[in-house]
């Protein structure tokens, strides 16, 4: 039981990071109908910026701010510089260009900073609190949960309660109608990428101290799992990303704890396959448009 509580709470923190990253994928998907395969590479590039600033100033929050800012900038650049140039309604070129971007960014980081893993120190202790003799969350886990929760809550408010969010949703759902209502759709798409890559950078920044260290591939597995999460939840559904993120985080933690670490990707693959076979558009998919 103690073990279960520990694994459960650890899974919760993992799930929050997963959900945040998956949400960032959903934001790009909704804004541009593209799965941004380069999200992890761009996020890790932003984490390098955060790492450099923290190393120079000694302040974690300065690094955090620098990481978010560079994530936002990279997102905007990727959209304005590359994705915009591709034809609409064609996911394939978007995926291929994003894959090319991954290769460029990861190889560029490896060339610029060297391939070695750089240890990143968390701002809070990673030693779990012990409550009633049972180890539960660590302060850093708690920080992770709160940070991810605050950002996801903020994004939900932005999208559902603000005029800007209304314009972004309209631009995503019906670009032509939105333009006819005076919504500057291309700015909304850029803004979507900006927010998404910034959110992804935060997720990567929260994750890296729990991993082996910062390296160009530090967020690869996060991306794959978050993509699985987004697909399980339904690419169009922010709520799906949150629920599936927590679910997959818990599943991964419990399978790692009770079976083995190497069984965890298989469990995610099995869950993904199962969900896709039962509901091809994900759990919270919107109804498919009529075709005939």
């Amino acid at each position, binding site marked *: 039981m103690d073990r279960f509580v520990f694994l459960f709470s650890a899974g919760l923190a993992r799930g929050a990071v997963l959900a945040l990253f998956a949400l960032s994928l959903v934001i790009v*998907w909704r804004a541009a109908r593209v*799965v941004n*395969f380069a999200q992890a590479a761009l996020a890790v590039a932003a984490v390098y910026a955060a790492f450099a600033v923290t190393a120079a100033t000694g302040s974690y929050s300065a690094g955090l701010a620098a990481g978010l800012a560079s994530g936002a900038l990279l997102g905007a650049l990727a959209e304005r510089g*590359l994705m915009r*140039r*591709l*034809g609409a*309604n*064609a*996911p*394939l*070129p978007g*995926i*291929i*260009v994003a*894959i*090319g*971007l*991954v*290769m*460029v*960014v*990861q*190889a*560029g980081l*490896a*060339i*610029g900073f*060297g*391939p070695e893993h750089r240890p990143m120190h968390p701002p809070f202790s990673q030693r779990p609190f012990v409550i009633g003799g049972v180890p539960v969350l660590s302060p850093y886990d708690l920080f992770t949960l709160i940070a991810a929760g605050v950002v996801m809550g903020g994004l939900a408010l932005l999208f559902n309660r603000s005029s800007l969010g209304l314009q972004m949703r309209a631009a995503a759902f019906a670009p032509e109608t939105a333009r006819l209502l005076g919504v500057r759709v291309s700015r909304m798409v850029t803004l979507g990428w900006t927010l998404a890559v910034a959110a992804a950078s935060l997720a990567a920044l929260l994750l890296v101290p729990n991993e082996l260290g910062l390296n160009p591939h530090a967020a*690869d*597995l996060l991306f*794959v799992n978050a*993509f*699985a999460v*987004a*697909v399980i939840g339904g*690419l169009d559904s922010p709520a799906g990303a949150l629920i599936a993120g927590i679910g997959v985080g818990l599943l991964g933690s419990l399978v790692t704890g009770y079976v083995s670490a*190497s*069984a*965890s*990707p*298989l469990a*995610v*693959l099995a869950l*993904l*396959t199962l969900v*896709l*076979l039962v509901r*091809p*558009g*994900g759990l919270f998919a919107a109804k498919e448009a009529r*075709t*005939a």
Partner: protein
Amino acid sequence: MRRLSIPLRALLITVLAIGGTFGLDPFRNYQLATAAACFAAVAGLTVLVGLTGQLSLGHAVLMASGGYGFAFAASAATGPAILVLAAGLLGAVAVSGLLGLLLGLAAARLRGPYLAGLTLALVIALPSAANTLPIGGDQGLRAPFLPVPEALTALIAVEQWHAWLAIIVAALAVTPLVMLRSGRAGLRMRAVLDDETASRLSGVDPGSVKTGAFVASAVPAGLGGAILAIATQQVAPGGYGLAFSLLLVVAAVVGGLGSIGGAAIGSVLVVFFPWVVDELVAAAPTDLGQRLDGNLAVLVFGAVIVAVTVLWPGGAARLLDRFLAARPRRFATPATNTER
């Protein structure tokens, strides 16, 4: 007329390629065998993407499955080398075909990004699967060594013999694919790509076409895995990771999606170019060289596929067509408008 000429052309190209091995040293012949393996897999991938619009990021796993199938069946078989080889190839076809069928059944129900996600998860899960299933873990399996036949021992080295086998197996893998593509099945695939609803209304079931296309694409990839197993005498999950899977995509994109000739160009490129770059980098100072080693080629590949997709969607095949004058293009390469 054209149906007849495909096997003849394949035979001609195969003979030419085998003749070409005499001009290469053993290491080049080993690289040629690797390129032939990639060619088989990329041909499968390019037909899948170009004709049905389904992007698989998991063709490395299909190759691995073929390699494992080869290793299992060839190790189990006893008798002359030709029997061992045949058993191994059958094993490769069976295992990769089966995995392709399973993926194809899933693919029939999934749209672009969902399928890409599933195949991506498959690549990431391969090392776990290797450690969970009885297939040798990270060490992988050994595949039997196929020695040079006695009649030829005086003439060629083992690397050249393996290059021959690689060329022949690649030809066996790709020729049926080309025939399939230029026949009715290819027509059905293009119909499904253009408009699923319309093709359904004309009596073509998009689901079974997509499943069939996936199987037809998986088997050449599996045979490509078998080639690698012949050339290296082993199969291990480490060789079939995400980086390799993405290289296959690079080869297909650079060559021009949907084009078999492009697949050949792309495969040669992804095998030889990194090697050339690494040779050049070896001349650089140690520290810089260490950083550039392996990364520079990836950087260039990434930049190239971005540039090709943004500026030159037809890939090398289109370039080739320009050179071969205004020959009408029989197979459009639909880099856009694939799925909605």
